[in-house]
């Protein structure tokens, strides 16, 4: 049962509060749902709403996005992410849900974490350290303060999310990719306990024109890198069965 809500007003204060214990809450879209439907083990919430952790800056092609930046703010701030953000939950959630918070939600939610993996983002934590997201493991008491990534050149960013509904639904399969000459990063969501890269698909795509045959081969290859589970949206069987289709469609820019 929650007996206090702390509201630290700086990154340092937030880190101190988190180190002392308590559940960190950014947008509240996960934590408040649990608190409302209780019981919860925590007695304290640490709200990051006033810790000064929101905001987007772009310097020489590198974006730094504060951890409590909401998805609504991000969508207006970084246009290339607009279509991807449109697939995340609904507007009334996006006005609250944060970039940082999305790093902590389990698959098949957390599509933005999939995007960050494809963008090879770094995660900045309160102590001023940055870690590449693929190597980052969250530790209790740690506050993510920002993420940083190079903004992809136009025409090199690809994103496709297959859902049971056209809007506001969790991932059956999410594909996020950057393909820019020799840089090929393909990240997948909905098909493993966390977001995963697909080195196998990347090997197929590297240096190749994105023809139908190449995309089909990449999709088939990606099967080697997944570990799908059953959930209320789709089974592991189904996710495995349609993964190659959605990998291909991510690069085809056609109405799936």
């Amino acid at each position, binding site marked *: 049962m929650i007996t206090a809500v702390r509201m630290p007003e700086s990154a340092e204060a937030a880190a101190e509060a988190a180190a002392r214990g308590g559940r960190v809450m950014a947008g509240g879209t996960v934590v408040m749902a649990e608190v409302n439907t209780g019981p919860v083990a925590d007695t304290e919430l640490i709200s990051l709403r006033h810790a000064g952790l929101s905001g987007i800056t772009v310097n020489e092609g590198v974006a730094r996005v504060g951890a409590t930046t909401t998805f609504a703010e991000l969508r207006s701030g970084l246009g290339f992410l607009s279509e991807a953000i449109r697939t995340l939950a609904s507007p009334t959630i996006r006005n609250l849900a944060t970039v940082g918070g999305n790093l902590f939600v389990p698959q098949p939610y957390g599509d933005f974490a999939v995007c960050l993996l494809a963008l090879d983002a770094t995660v900045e934590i309160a102590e001023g350290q940055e870690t590449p997201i693929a190597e980052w493991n969250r530790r209790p008491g740690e506050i993510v303060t920002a993420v940083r990534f190079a903004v992809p050149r136009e025409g090199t960013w690809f994103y496709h999310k297959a859902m*049971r509904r056209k809007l506001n639904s969790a991932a059956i399969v999410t594909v996020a990719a950057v393909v820019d000459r020799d840089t090929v990063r393909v990240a997948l969501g909905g098909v493993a306990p966390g977001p995963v890269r697909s080195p196998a698909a990347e090997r197929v795509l590297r240096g190749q024109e994105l023809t139908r045959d190449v995309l089909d081969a990449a999709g088939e290859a990606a099967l080697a890198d997944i570990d799908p589970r059953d959930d*209320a949206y789709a089974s592991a069987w*189904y996710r495995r069965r349609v993964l190659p289709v959605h990998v291909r469609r991510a690069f085809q820019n056609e109405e799936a």
Partner: protein
Amino acid sequence: MAKLKGRGYASVNYPTGMNLGGDPSQALIHSTTTGTFVVSLSSVDLGQGLKTVVAQCAAEVLGLPFENILIDTADTDTGPHCMGTFASRGTHRVGNAVIMAAAEAREVMLAVAADELEVDPGDLETDGTGFIAVKGAEEKRIHITDLALAAHFKHGRTISGRGIFLKEQSTVVPETGEMDPDSCQAHACTVAVVEVDDETGVVEVLEMHNAYEIGRALNPAMVTQQVEGGAWMGMSHALFEATEPYYPARDHGPADFTEYLMPGPADIARQYSVILERPADNGPFGAKGIGEMTANAPIPAIANAIFDACGVRVETMPFTPERVLRDLDALKGTT
């Protein structure tokens, strides 16, 4: 990869009301001193619009504007009895009871007006705007507000009425099996147009065409809404909803409205609805019930459309992309 289009239809007939030990509802109506007619009911309006429809019935019988009617469904402790709003019985039973009550109230209303205007009640008519006037001599008239005041304070009369509709219990004729369990039956047909994505098994309902024969559409806009809302529910049940997605295993039962899948506003079909009327001789102005049936026909219509599109016979709801895809694989021999 192909999007395969298909069309299918299904039809349904649906009974109005219940048999049980008889199926009654009562209504009481009384005029306030300023000519508002309060209809007292225990019937519940859940949003289906019962209050609107019975107010229309009362206004029609009384010959007064809709705005003069006040429906009071406040208290099942004290109100006149109603079996409830279910079994598609509301419009039919309660409508009939209200008509009966309003007819009695109208008689009293005209009798008092006759006294006021010093004519015979048979010489009077209502003009629908609130006046009771002498036929052929409209300038000799009285407004219901003045009439109600006069009734209460001058004549000592209550302008009120009582109504009940009972569908009597029907028992089976043992020799033949004949019985009369429902008052009337409404009929409907839905044609569904779907598109099946043969690479993912995803079914999209593009169109639903609905024809409903419901005796009398007392409120055509509300009937259309019932048809469309019900068709949405049918589509939802056909393609999305499950409390046990891995039945008979109980795993992954939905824990919130995110996991409990229902089509959202981006997933709806274009609908075209037609209302047909074959008045029922025992319905209020001929109306039949349309409450529950609207979710029924769309489901098999969608199933038939899927078969038309891609040859897959779905038999278990919901017709998930996985079920369709497994059946497509089996058809192609690629299981």
